[in-house]
């Protein structure tokens, strides 16, 4: 047994708790989880069955925590988990799973399979069996402050761009601001229109806000690859920033896993509840809407539909707010089949879109999203996650489907009524 495998196995054993034991005991091999997983439905390959992705963990559990399992191991009937076995499982655990959670929503005996995959990744990463490119994200986060190597000067560049575009100054490190706005690297790099939209919305709502120079990064690669230490470091920077600046609410941007990381895993990673609120930008916008702070004019007249990011809706609990916001600005809002809680994943989350080895599989799996869209034939697609956006656009491009994709925050901002205060925006 080599050192990494040893460590990996030890981590896996620590991961196992009563829920996991209950889940393994309950599984009746009905295979319904496969019918809910786009990696199986679009490939027809049973190896992508969600519960099968956990086979080594199951054996480890039985051998460690059950009398019968220990007996079988002693008799040589149950072989120990090996390094090559974990190596063989890397594809199943990282390439064919986005942590979308649909499997957990359908298992008849109630197994929370995605919960188990998330924990299995912890052991896999320590044993050295996580995708190489994303493992590098750990180094970059520690060394550079961002998993993607996006440093403060890039943020400042975007701030300048936004100030030019909107005429609104973007606040940085303002103590006592009500909201602290996080940015995912994807937004800083690919979608600067997000920050512009936020600036304009905050101005109209009359809310104070700020970016944080030491804790701006929302992207949490640690959550994706399953390295809690890394995930904790990223969350801690945000927490320190939020507490130093004494903000009331931290806003998680248009990203799925970033929200899961800070809202639901954050306090558990750092071992204490937060002293501030955490909301996804969609929740914030809906709250403004409900309070009458969001004044919009005009409606989009083409046929719009909405793609629910898995980590926001099914895994995050934000399902109605986006619909309220869509109805504010869309005359013809149509729902995808199985929208909301049971929406199908875009196929790019959980580190899959960053994993070049998974490209072919991801594009095959995209056919599920394609059929959902074809059932409704929208003119444009709206969503609230930067990775969903790029994944969907790449999929559409691959299948030669012409369908513009836009962000919800951007869409709302485009309909804001002009600022009440007169005079031209400063240049």
């Amino acid at each position, binding site marked *: 047994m080599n050192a990494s495998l040893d460590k990996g196995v030890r981590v896996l054993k620590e991961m196992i708790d009563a829920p996991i034991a209950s889940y393994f005991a309950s599984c009746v091999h009905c295979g319904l989880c496969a019918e809910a997983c786009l990696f199986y439905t679009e490939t027809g390959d049973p190896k992508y069955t969600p519960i099968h992705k956990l086979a080594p963990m199951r054996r480890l559990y039985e051998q460690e925590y059950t009398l019968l399992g220990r007996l079988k191991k002693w008799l040589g009937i149950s072989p120990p988990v090996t390094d090559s076995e974990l190596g063989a499982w890397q594809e199943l655990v990282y390439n064919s799973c986005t942590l979308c959670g649909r499997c957990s929503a359908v298992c008849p005996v109630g197994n929370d399979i995605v919960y188990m995959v998330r924990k299995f990744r912890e052991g896999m990463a320590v044993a050295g069996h996580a995708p190489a490119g994303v493992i590098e994200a750990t180094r970059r986060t520690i060394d550079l402050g961002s998993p993607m190597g996006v440093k403060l000067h890039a943020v400042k560049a975007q701030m300048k761009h936004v100030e030019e*575009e909107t*005429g609104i100054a973007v606040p940085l490190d303002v103590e006592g601001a009500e909201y602290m706005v996080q940015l995912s690297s994807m937004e800083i790099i690919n979608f600067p229109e997000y920050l512009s939209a936020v600036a304009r919305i905050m101005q109209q709502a009359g809310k104070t806000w700020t970016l944080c120079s030491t804790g701006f990064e929302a992207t949490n690669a640690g959550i994706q690859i399953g390295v809690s230490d890394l995930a904790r470091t990223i969350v801690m920077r945000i927490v320190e920033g939020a507490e130093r600046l004494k903000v009331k609410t931290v806003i998680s941007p248009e990203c799925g896993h970033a929200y899961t990381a800070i809202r639901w895993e954050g306090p558990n990673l750092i071992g204490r509840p937060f002293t501030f609120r955490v909301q996804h930008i969609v929740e914030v916008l809906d709250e403004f809407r409900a309070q009458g702070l969001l004044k919009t004019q005009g409606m989009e007249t083409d046929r719009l539909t909405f793609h629910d990011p898995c980590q926001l809706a099914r895994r995050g609990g934000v399902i109605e707010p986006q619909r309220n916001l869509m109805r504010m600005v869309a005359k013809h809002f149509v729902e995808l089949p199985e929208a909301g809680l049971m929406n199908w994943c875009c196929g790019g989350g959980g580190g899959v879109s960053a994993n070049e080895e998974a490209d072919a599989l991801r594009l095959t799996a995209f056919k599920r999203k394609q059929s959902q869209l074809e059932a409704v034939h929208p003119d444009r697609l709206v969503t609230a996650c930067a990775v969903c956006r790029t994944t969907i656009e790449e999929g559409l491009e691959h299948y030669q489907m012409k369908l513009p994709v836009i962000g919800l925050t951007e869409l709302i901002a485009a309909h804001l009524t002009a600022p009440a205060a007169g005079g031209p925006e400063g240049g």
Partner: protein
Amino acid sequence: MSIHNDSEFKAALERLAPDRQRQVAARFARRVADLSQDVRVKTAIEAASRGGVSEAELEVLHQAANSARVESFTRCGMEADWSDQTGHFVAKAAMACVRPTAAAGNLAWDTAMHARMARTCQTITEGTGTGNRETEAQYRLLEDFLNQGVRT
């Protein structure tokens, strides 16, 4: 006329007719065209500069530039490649200047914005930071363009 700030810049662009917007947009895009290696992007910018492009051609050029844009997306979690990003924004600038007339909007302003982002990505790549003179250069470009228009 002279341009001193973005309010004036944006307003002046908005006042232009779509075909005139496209011409000045092409000039903004041409300034950053060399930052992209993609032939689809360069073709779109050249076509917009030439002028007299039919709607059908615009459609094709727009689609091609869109493919270039999508292909240059960053992968979430991977190391940011700023030179790739430069190309991404040049593609967006190219798309804006060949945007079909029906959806034109203020395409010249959009082109200018994307061109500035491309320039910023370039200077980040070169390590010279985020300050650059793209904005001023665009103001001068627009001034020249408007003055030419007045004369002819």
